[in-house]
């Protein structure tokens, strides 16, 4: 319906402007959708024990739901719209045939919700994987739009091979301005999961919303006392059962007393499809006999215990003990323990990163860190004057930085592999790493090295040495090193200033760094 189209359009619009558009600071709060998400707000605030002010906007959605019911699911949620759209397509193509009566349990999403909240109480924040907004944004950022970018490339290539080079150029410049990131490790997998979720609509209409969505479950809990109640006019009802068959969320409108208000998303498909227009949603503040969620008490307790037991299970990982050398976090990231409690794996930072450097982690941060962002310099380095990731993070897991602040944040340290570096090994000139180092004074200095060559001669060349006091770990050296398959200079996480333990140099009292040399 129109409202869904509007909010989906808004979601996509904010998605497309989450990148460098010409201003150092993005004017619009592109991450605003997330601030209204009660599931993310609750899980993040509880797990981190910190209230990120913007997340308090979610209270507005809670109040709205208490009064009106799950209208956010039916009228606003962009993932709900995606599922509804595909369910519609599958129904029209007869791939989906809604059953007349469906007795499948709708309880699963409540168990998922309980798991998320119980583990959050013990500081584990797993809300981001199943939260609908995180799920959709991440799928778009890492799967759908990268795929689309490859399609665009294909179109541009075809235009050029057909000799339509001016059309090819116009389209190519347009795509270049969108600065879409097209390369993602796990992009295949995350895209596949998204397609899988969409295909679930072949089985049941709005499968996700019915059985999986923990945010919908949370809103369902709040909606029990809402003021709009479904009413079937008994005189008009011909007991055809069409309303129940086509109810998108299996809320069982017929018979009236079995209607589950906690499941109803107010799509009003039932009212539209009723041949005698017997269904309406009058205001009825007084509580009524309505169908409730069937949650077995035993299962609630079990799920809670599972949520709690999950916490130590997740933390067996070595990443809790020693930082992984490849886990280079975005500049502005909180210390790892706090970071993991706040990151909702939404992918905003990965979308905004101008060089495509931020990638979803897999094992580097342990199971808790799956799909949290890490910098992979071989794919993209951290652009010196950019702080976009810190500006778009919806929960403050990456603390917002000014450009000036960001140039002084150390996220790691570069290392020269003397066994692969051209001047050291071949005695030929290079220095591409030093050339690209953005710091002033540069964090790469030179020594003259003598290299014995097989013909008996000795070559003397300038060779790079990293100045550990100046290197901020941006990774442009690794990114531009001509030893393509395995760069001869590479960045690891040690020295990242957000970490107390992951350090290398101990400042010696009396051994100061003169201000002009430190570049600070």
């Amino acid at each position, binding site marked *: 319906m129109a409202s869904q189209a509007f909010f989906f359009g808004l979601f996509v619009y904010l998605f497309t402007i989450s990148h*460098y558009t*010409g201003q150092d600071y993005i004017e619009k709060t592109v991450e605003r959708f997330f601030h209204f998400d009660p599931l993310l707000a609750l899980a993040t605030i509880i797990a981190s024990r910190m209230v990120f002010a913007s997340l308090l906007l979610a209270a507005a959605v809670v109040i709205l739901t208490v009064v009106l019911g799950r209208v956010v699911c039916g009228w606003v949620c962009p993932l709900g719209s995606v599922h509804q759209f595909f369910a519609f397509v599958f129904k029209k193509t007869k791939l989906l045939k809604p059953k007349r009566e469906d007795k499948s349990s709708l309880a699963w999403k409540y168990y998922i919700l309980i798991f998320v909240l119980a583990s959050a109480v013990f500081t584990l924040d797993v809300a981001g994987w199943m939260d609908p907004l995180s799920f959709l944004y991440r799928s778009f950022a890492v799967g759908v739009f990268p795929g689309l970018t490859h399609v665009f490339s294909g179109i*541009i*290539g075809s235009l*050029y091979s057909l000799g339509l*080079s001016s059309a*090819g*150029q116009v389209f*190519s*410049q347009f795509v*270049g*301005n969108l*600065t879409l990131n097209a390369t993602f490790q796990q992009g295949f997998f995350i895209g596949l999961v998204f397609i899988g979720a969409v295909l679930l609509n072949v089985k049941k209409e709005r499968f996700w919303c019915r059985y999986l969505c923990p945010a919908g479950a949370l809103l369902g809990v709040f909606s029990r006392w809402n003021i709009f109640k479904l009413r079937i006019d008994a005189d008009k009802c011909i007991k055809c059962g069409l309303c129940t068959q086509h109810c998108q969320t299996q809320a069982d409108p017929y018979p009236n007393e079995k209607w589950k208000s906690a499941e109803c998303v107010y799509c009003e498909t039932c009212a539209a499809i009723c041949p005698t227009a017997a269904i309406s949603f009058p205001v009825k503040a007084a509580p009524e006999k309505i169908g409730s969620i069937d949650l077995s008490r035993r299962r609630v307790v079990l799920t809670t215990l599972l949520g709690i037991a999950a916490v130590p299970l997740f933390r067996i990982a070595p990443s809790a003990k020693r930082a992984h050398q490849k886990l280079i976090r975005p500049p502005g990231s909180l210390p790892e323990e706090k970071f993991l409690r706040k990151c909702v794996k939404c992918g905003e930072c990965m979308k905004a990163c*101008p*060089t495509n450097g931020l990638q979803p982690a897999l094992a580097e941060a342990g199971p808790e860190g799956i799909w949290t962002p890490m910098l992979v310099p071989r794919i993209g380095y951290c*652009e*010196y*004057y*950019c702080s976009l990731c810190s500006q778009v993070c919806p929960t403050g897991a990456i603390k917002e930085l000014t450009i000036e602040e960001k140039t002084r944040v150390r996220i790691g340290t570069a290392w020269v592999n003397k066994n692969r570096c*051209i001047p050291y090994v071949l005695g*030929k*000139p*290079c*220095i*591409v790493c*030093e*050339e*690209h180092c*953005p*710091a*002033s*004074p*540069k964090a790469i200095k*030179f020594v003259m090295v003598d290299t014995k060559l097989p013909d008996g001669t000795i070559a003397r060349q*300038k060779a790079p040495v990293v100045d550990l006091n100046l290197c901020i770990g941006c990774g442009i050296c690794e990114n*531009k*090193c*001509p030893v*393509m398959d395995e760069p001869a200079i590479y960045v690891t996480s040690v020295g990242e200033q957000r970490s107390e333990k992951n350090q290398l140099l101990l400042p010696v009292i009396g051994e100061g760094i003169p201000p002009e040399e430190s*570049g600070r």
Partner: protein
Amino acid sequence: MDRRTFIKNAALGSLAFSLHPSLAGQPPAGRQPNLAYITGESPAAITKEAVAALGGMKRFVGRGDVVIVKPNIGWDRTPEMAANTNPDVVRALVEMSLEAGAKEVKVMDNTTNQAKRCYIRSGIQEAARAGGAKVLFTDDFRLKKTTLNGEWIKEWEIFSDFLEADKIINVPIAKVHSLTRLSMSMKNWLGALGGPRNQLHQKLDQAMVDLAAFFKPALTVLDAYRILVRNGPQGGRLSDTKVLKTVVAGTDQVAVDAVGASFFDAKPEELLYLKIAQQKGLGTYEWEKLAVEKRTI
């Protein structure tokens, strides 16, 4: 003096002027200066003056020409950092080319940092567009494997825009560089290349000469309004820059770079790539021997 002597002197004087028009400040056709060295407050004004001193843009750009003005837009730096060409210098060249009758003026460079950031934060996209140019990102689909016949580089992928243009105006900025010591007009050609340019550093001076020999620019304009004297080629602090308020323009890119070397207290013969270029006959670095138009406005 008496009237007869006056008339005789006037006649002799006019004859002398007609045989040596340079005495009146007008260069004769065929004896135009090929090197201009202009200093002044406004980057746009000194650029226009430099081209005028060489005989005006009409000497270089013909009616209906497709012109590429190739600045250095390689780095994500703002203008005062002297990492990219001064945007006002670029705009002036765009405007002059259009005034001289160019059909189209394109401005592009294969950047090092992220392209959109470089184009915008350098100020060049806005300035060039204001001047009437088509500012375009380089497009990998437009790369053409090209035979260069260099001493070292035999073939390389080059953006077809540079190959198809009628005239190229090379407009670099004067900077220091750890490998070649200085980065000026001959280094700027790396921005017309695609492919793995980071391999060229294994013999960069020779690569620069091979490229300079291949691209025959109609005009070279060295932006020395603000030069980079430390931590090149992209600097990072204002203290890395030095304001000279100068532009050097010429038809011989070797001579232009030789003038540029003087801004860094370097002797041209100390720069390997200039020596190779002179040996190859690409130009001369003994620029003091050329007719130089040196002005301050």
